[in-house]
């Protein structure tokens, strides 16, 4: 038995093994839309694309909450900024149809600027105050989006902006069906592939940031801000950097969301969204990139699975006691509470963070 374990240890570290695992994974991810589409239907492919979007969002928030330890409860504001940026400049609303290669980075940049703007006066506040201020900011953005339809119609108010242009890169439109190795890829699949590539990029950037001078500075600030400053870290700027980077990822995801859904309204950007993204980070494993990815996928897929509890209730009790749609948020809240009480380092924590929460502070 010990012999088998020893062989497994050696095998685990073989780079060729690592590469074949990655290759297999890549193949699986590439084939996934077709597999899922054929078995569970295209609705589930849509859910997968949504999950990839939330992976990007959760990783963005992870930089702020997980790495730097700043509780941001208004993260959805950056998502909204990116989404509306795209929506307003690529739809019949102002009759502007700027190209995607301009708008997606633009949305990200504008969101990043908002992040810096919000962070500049507020990042020196203590944790709880920062949480409430960011929450307030998230609400302010939503209220403004809801009301900026008079006297000049900027955002079209509660009705939102629809008929948003799909993404187009040069002559390659994601809305058209293309062909990949002889198989047809409808619009939905095209978006899935784009999201997959971008999610992988975001994961890559997060990993690089984690193991870098900046990443260490973030963790140092999280651990002991005073000591970090005494060691020469410009805490204000580094915190601002975390905020702005997180906001940038949020803004990018927003632009993608707008073009994917084709429609945005203030209703998509409520506090609940911010809390849900926070839930993904916390539940998955704060600061731990694989954990956060896991948390994002879990919290997108699980509520869909909850729909089936309706059938379950019918079967067991003869009627639906609790509408499955109502259960979703309740379970999020319960998840937040129970994770913090029972396993605060998250479902898939980094080995270090586990030790941090285990011993208390």
């Amino acid at each position: 038995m010990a012999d088998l374990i020893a062989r497994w240890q050696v095998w685990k570290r073989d780079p060729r093994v690592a590469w074949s695992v990655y290759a297999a994974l890549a193949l699986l991810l590439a084939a996934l839309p077709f597999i899922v589409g054929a078995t569970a239907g295209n609705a589930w492919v849509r859910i997968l694309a949504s999950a990839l979007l939330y992976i990007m969002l959760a990783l963005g928030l992870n930089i702020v909450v997980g790495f730097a330890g700043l509780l941001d409860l208004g993260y959805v504001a950056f998502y909204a900024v990116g989404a509306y940026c795209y929506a307003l400049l690529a739809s019949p609303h102002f009759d502007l149809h700027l190209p995607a290669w301009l708008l997606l980075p633009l949305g990200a940049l504008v969101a990043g600027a908002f992040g810096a703007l919000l962070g500049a006066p507020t990042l020196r506040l203590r944790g709880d105050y920062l949480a409430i201020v960011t929450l307030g900011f998230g609400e302010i953005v939503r209220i403004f989006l809801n009301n900026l339809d008079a006297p000049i119609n900027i955002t079209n108010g509660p009705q939102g902006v629809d008929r948003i242009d799909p993404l187009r890169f040069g002559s390659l439109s994601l809305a058209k069906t293309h062909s990949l190795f002889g198989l047809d890829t409808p619009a939905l699949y095209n978006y899935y592939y784009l999201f997959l590539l971008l999610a992988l990029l975001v994961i890559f950037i997060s990993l690089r940031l984690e193991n870098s001078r900046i990443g260490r500075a973030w963790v140092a600030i999280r651990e002991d801000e005073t000591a970090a400053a005494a060691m020469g870290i410009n805490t204000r700027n580094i915190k601002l950097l975390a905020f702005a980077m997180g906001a940038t990822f949020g803004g990018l995801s927003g632009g993608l969301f707008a073009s994917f859904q084709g429609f945005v309204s203030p209703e998509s950007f409520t506090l609940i969204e911010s809390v849900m993204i926070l839930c993904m980070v916390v539940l998955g494993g704060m600061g731990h990139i694989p954990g956060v990815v896991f948390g994002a996928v879990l919290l997108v897929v699980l509520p869909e699975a909850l729909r089936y509890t309706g059938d379950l209730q019918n079967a067991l009790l003869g009627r639906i006691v609790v509408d499955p749609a109502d259960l979703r948020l309740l379970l999020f809240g319960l998840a937040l509470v129970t994770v913090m009480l029972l396993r605060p380092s998250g479902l898939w924590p980094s080995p270090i963070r586990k030790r941090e929460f285990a011993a208390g502070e």
Partner: protein
Amino acid sequence: MDILLQQIVNGLVAGSIYALVALGYTMVYGILGLINFAHGEVVMFGAMIALAVIQALVGTGIALPPAVIIGLGLLAAIPSCMLLGFAIERIAYRPLRHAPRLAPLITAIGMSIVLQNVAMIIWGRRYITFPALLPPGLHQFGSVVVTDLQIFIVLLALLLMAGLEWLVQRTSLGRAMRATSQNREIAGLMGININTVISATFIIGSALAAVAGVMVSAYYGIAHYYMGFMLGLKAFTAAVLGGIGNLRGAMLGGVLLGLIESLGAGYIGDLTGGVFGSNYQDVFAFFVLILVLVFRPSGLLGERLADRA
């Protein structure tokens, strides 16, 4: 001028309600250093429970004086909220008293969401109306109109605030609460049962919240499972404005915020030439919060703390 006075009256009434809720936030923050996000939901539960009782009584058709009906509603709401507040602290905060700062903040938000959705499941998503029980007594001062209800709310709020002031300054429990908020560890060493004091704080705050909930639903005529969120946020802003941890600060902050909101909403149209209307009312509280925290985080009555090493 008349509009101004009317807005002031309205602001004072709303402010009294904010003050009652703000007291709950400030007491908990003073003792635990924690923002009890779920407090707004306790207010909501107070409103919902009282309304359920009131509607049931009205539905039976028995002829009872309105005061009794509302009184019975309060009688049901207050103990329920006290129990709720107690339970929230025991379940979500006490186990995390020594955990990293982020942890109780997250459970607080989680509890808030749980409570909102439990209320939604129990009472549905629709607005629940407050039955037309209250005497429509009006008093006219010039062209300023003040209703009986408004007077009642302000008087009751003042009474409760005075009661709390007495409790905190003149009783041994109050002394224990003040000591614990100054220095929890030493208070414990001096023989004060910290857990009891903390539970009492939550219970008292929740009782005030229940009354505030009934006031809100009576004044605005409706209750709703989501009503606690905005109200809670504004009340917290009021607490910060007055100086978090400071009881008189919470009272002052509440009234001030009510006035700022009322006057702001009333005049913003004129001030901005029609660009922004009173539909931006909710934003005022947030801006006040941000301004206070950025420029004078200790609030109006708080001490200037140098939070240095």
